[in-house]
């Protein structure tokens, strides 16, 4: 318990003293699949009122802020993107463009049960299941330790049916989670983007799960904000 408090404190101090680069950097990267649920009976993809979701696995982590604390052997690292409701819809030129109401959420989990990964892989395949939501998804992608959670605002999605590809983009601001303290507070606000494409046919040994709309590959980018040197005293004040 003490370690859980001291380690983030140490990390916060370290981050407090380190000079920072000017670039935005990838906080987390991930792959997975997305799906929708209809808010009302309709056959239109992402009509107003429909909800949009994503589930999958984190594939890499910020090399300084997060990667040193990640153990891919002992755990799986999953994400669940949810509470995104379409509030505007436009379709023209064979391009879909929608926006989502504020209040979306993305959660990243560390889970020692590895029930989403479903090892050994192969011969097993990840537990996406079919036609989500189902008994596997999102539940097996949203259990374990909530490592980082963030809000998704100003979110939008496009899909170009001419090019058969699209993207999801949003502001992503960290709001909590056990690993949040590893990320310097000035870098909690960033953005989130995902490339989307229809799943190709085939897939051996693991075919794309049925009932999902797209496979996705994305990243959460957060700025490395310049920091100033602080003192123990000023840091202690933060905790009083």
């Amino acid at each position, binding site marked *: 318990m003490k370690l859980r408090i001291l380690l983030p404190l140490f990390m916060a101090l370290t981050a407090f003293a380190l000079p920072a680069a000017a670039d935005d950097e990838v906080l987390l990267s991930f792959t997975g699949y997305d799906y929708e649920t209809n808010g009302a009976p309709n056959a239109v993809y992402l009509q107003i009122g429909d909800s949009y979701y994503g589930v999958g696995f984190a594939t890499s982590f910020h090399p300084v802020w997060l990667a040193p604390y990640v153990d891919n052997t002992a755990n799986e690292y999953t994400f669940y993107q949810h509470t995104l409701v379409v509030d505007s819809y436009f379709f023209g030129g064979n391009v879909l463009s929608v926006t989502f109401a504020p209040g979306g959420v993305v959660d990243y989990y560390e889970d020692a049960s590895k029930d989403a990964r479903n090892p050994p892989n192969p011969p097993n395949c990840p537990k996406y299941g079919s036609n989500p939501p189902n008994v596997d998804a999102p539940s097996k992608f949203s259990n374990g330790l909530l490592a980082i959670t963030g809000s998704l605002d100003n979110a939008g999605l496009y899909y170009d049916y001419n090019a058969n590809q699209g993207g999801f983009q949003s502001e992503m601001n960290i709001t909590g989670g056990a690993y949040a303290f590893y990320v310097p507070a000035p870098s909690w606000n960033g953005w989130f*983007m995902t490339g989307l494409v229809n799943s190709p046919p*085939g897939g051996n040994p693991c075919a794309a799960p049925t009932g999902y709309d797209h496979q996705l590959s994305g990243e959460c*980018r957060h700025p490395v904000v310049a920091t100033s040197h602080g003192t123990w005293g000023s840091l202690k004040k933060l905790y009083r």
Partner: protein
Amino acid sequence: MKKRIGVAGLVALLTFATASAALAQCGGQLLLKFDADVFAYESNATLSVIEGGNGAWKSNAGSALTVVGIMTLFCGPLGDLTPDITPPYTNEYTFVWTGMSAVAATTEVPFGPSGKKWDTDYSAGSFLVYEELGSSNAPRAGAMPAAPPNGTVPVNFQDGGALILSGSLTGLHTIVTRTTNASTAIWGGSFTASWQASGGTRFGAGPTNIGGNVNVAQGNWCGKYPTGCTPSGYTAHPNGKFDYDQTTVARSSTWGAIKQLFR
């Protein structure tokens, strides 16, 4: 007497049984994953009108595209390869996309109420993946040297070790979007392409090699300039993956041809 030889099933079974254990992040059709440390640059690109303090690069027709990057994850038949993901990065797996050029100038069209959407198609090119064990010298995000090509880029992404996989990249299509014309605009982007291996030490038949199937590459194509995605001199910051279907394509053959393989 011609017979359709069902070698495919046997090879698939062998692959199934002996492929190395994939890492926790693997799953589905994922073969290669590249994340934070991937950058694109072009020989002839111009900046769009800066709106709200940011713009995006637009290719002129014929502009040569080069992408350099560092792999973060291998899955499936290549699951035994383990890139270092934390400093000091003792082992690195780098790659280069080369030989592609913009088929036509980037199109720029309205997107949403006041945003923009940029589309670019590229001619066929090739990809090369290198393994460098025991050392690393490729620059990473936050430290990309300006104005490529230069003394480091792309040289340090294609040196030091074995060429483990190479092949063709075709049909690369990139999209960059911004939601509005304000500084608060949210940027999006994507790319898709097809890839087919044809060389390298991990190309060929066998459970830990890559065959010649045509597969999909897909991911982000972040083009925001000047803050965020694109360091000075770079036109995009991709992030994505190569998918892979291990199914071996069955081909018609003859018993005579098969016998020849064993003589």
